[in-house]
């Protein structure tokens, strides 16, 4: 089975772990337990009748004290940029991380998601900004790890891109 390393990137507390856990185990906790280092989880998805094993690297969130180690990124086939809709600053972190990823792993497929769509009224990232991201070629999805909305779609969408990017064996 095709196996693909996928990194979850984003500022701290945007919901990287929550998205992975919702996707892998279909659980969610309101309790915040920050990720130290990296936790690796696996789950297979089917794209175009082909099974593909996603190896999800749930990294610690980046902030001004902790830069993401290049070594964690190496070997990634794709990555997911997670933002927290209720915190505008997490967009800047995502933009910076995308540059890091580009430097480290080159132009591999990636998808961005603005998480916490269940509290849309509190969002600080506005439509115009989203349009600008899309205009520069980003795929921007909305989702909620809490409600499970857009989670499966997120991983399937990236898997699809990974499948199409990889030569058929």
């Amino acid at each position, binding site marked *: 089975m095709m196996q693909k390393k996928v990194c979850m990137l984003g500022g*701290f507390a945007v919901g990287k772990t929550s998205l992975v856990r919702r996707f892998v185990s279909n659980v969610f906790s309101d309790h915040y337990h920050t990720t130290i280092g990296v936790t690796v989880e696996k789950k297979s998805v089917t794209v175009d009748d082909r099974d593909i094993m996603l*190896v999800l690297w749930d990294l610690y969130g980046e902030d001004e004290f902790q830069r993401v180690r290049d070594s964690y990124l190496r070997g990634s086939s794709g990555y997911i940029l997670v933002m927290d809709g209720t*915190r505008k600053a997490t967009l800047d972190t995502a933009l910076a991380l995308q540059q890091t990823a580009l430097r480290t792993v080159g132009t591999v497929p990636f998808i961005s998601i603005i998480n916490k769509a269940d509290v849309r009224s509190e969002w600080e990232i506005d439509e115009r900004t989203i349009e600008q991201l899309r205009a520069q070629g980003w795929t921007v999805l909305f989702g909620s790890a809490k409600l499970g909305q857009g989670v499966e779609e997120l991983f399937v969408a990236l898997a699809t891109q990974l499948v199409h990017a990889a030569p058929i064996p």
Partner: protein
Amino acid sequence: MKSRPGNLAPHNESLFNAVLSTLDMVVFECEEDSSEFRLQGLPPEWWRAWVGPADCTMLDLGRCSPFLQEYLTSAHLAWAGTPGATEKSGPWTEPDRQGGSMTLEATALAIGSKKLVLIERLGSGFKEMGTIVQRARERMLAEERTAKAYRKTETHLISKLEVSERTKDDALALLQHLGLAALVLDERGHITFASDRGLEILGMTAEAVIGREWEQALPLPEHDRMAIRELINTASDRRKACVVGIEGPRPSWVEIEVHGDPCHPGRHIVIVHDRTELHTLRRVLNEQASFHDLVGKSPAMLRTYQLVRDVAQVDSTVLIEGETGTGKELIARAIHSCSSRKHKPFIAANCAGLTDSILTSQLFGHKRGAFTGAVNDQQGLFEAAEGGTLFLDEIGDIPQQVQTALLRVLQEKEITRLGEAKPRKIDVRVVAATHHNLSEDVVRGSFRADLLYRIRIARVQLSPLRERREDIPLLAQSFLGQICTATGKTIERLNPDTLRLLMSHAWPGNVRELKSAIEFAVISCKTKEVLPIDLPPEIISAPVVPSSSVWIPLPNRDEKSRFLAALSDAKGNRTEAARRLGVSRATFYRRLVELDIDPR
């Protein structure tokens, strides 16, 4: 997996194992040409729990964990690099068999030809660090939430403020548009708002009034301040407006209305109306009641003032006609004062009762020795009045010969001093006055017709006081003021009965008589009010018109007694009695018959 003892420390295996145990570490050596690793020494407890029995010494590490699998691809960097180089994996978390998790870190290094991988379990130090990071992040999130809440409240308040600012702006715009002049006072009497129009009327700037107590900010005389204070303290339903004078560079009169603020009890809205123009108009009207020492605002007097102004504009000779005491000289002075000659002399000469030669010498001057007693050269009044006005009173009384000389002077504009031959040029305006009917005098032959026409180019006729009784209170008050000032007495007013007596008196001596009566009264007066008793007896004895301040012609019954009184005062002299009553002799005789009075 093959079971084989570790061979890294064959000489002191127990020491090696103790070190590994202390560091909580497991060590593997990479098998040449294989993906398998050989366990070195005794693995710690956690390793056995995670991977399986300790005797399993050969294993494919990549299969143990996807993380390790990925990591081992980069371990070659250390094995192939400079001797002693290491490649750390960074921490990662693995689930243990008990349902918990542990954080591990791998290090790849080469010692000699041996390619080694060390895996250690990160212990309490690492956990502590994790706790600190966790706390720091929770704290940051909490702070972000608080800041966000503040921002939200702030935005909310700002938008609310904007709305209220807009409402305020609208209200203000409306206020300014309506030109409403208003001030708002807070509970402490401080001015919290002033509309543009209000400031304009008060002649002040916003900086000078806003935030200040009204009593200090507004330049008001003390009595006006008191009036406003009273207004503010009066219950709203009994409040009336008051007019106050604003002092300062541009004094103004304003009417002040005070209303309670319906929204905030204790605060007041003060509406200001500009009444300066009204006041000015009123003052002008009052000023019209007097004119160059002339007092009166009866239509007759107002007409006279206008006539004086008109006549003053031209340089022609004027004849003033009026009974004795009507103020003919005042009129002459007023004409002079209004004219362009006002800065030049005004000379008054009474022509009555003077002989031919005295009058001639007085008017035209004489040369020394011109007649007995002419010891010096003397200039006459015409010369004295050069450039100004010569007032000739009682012109009807001048002798024929002087009339002729005067006519020549008026025609030639030159005079010849008595005893001299050479005439002198003069520039004098002549204003003449008479109580005669000069036309009758002309018919009678006592006055030259050509002279009359010469002097009567302009004509001012003064009404007797009885024909403008409405001026009596004003005149009386004015004389009272003048006389009090002159005598130092303080008499404030005329008693209403006194005024009534004055109003009903005939005033044959006109204004002059009224003035003497007031002088008499001031001397007699003992109180702050002129009482009827203070007036001269001939005025008191005249009957009083009951309770009316407006003059009503006296009824016949009173008229008869007045006629009788006048006859007795004049000791039977009918001409004098008629004069005292202010009627012509013909009228006097007719009324005697009508009233059935025997003149003897």
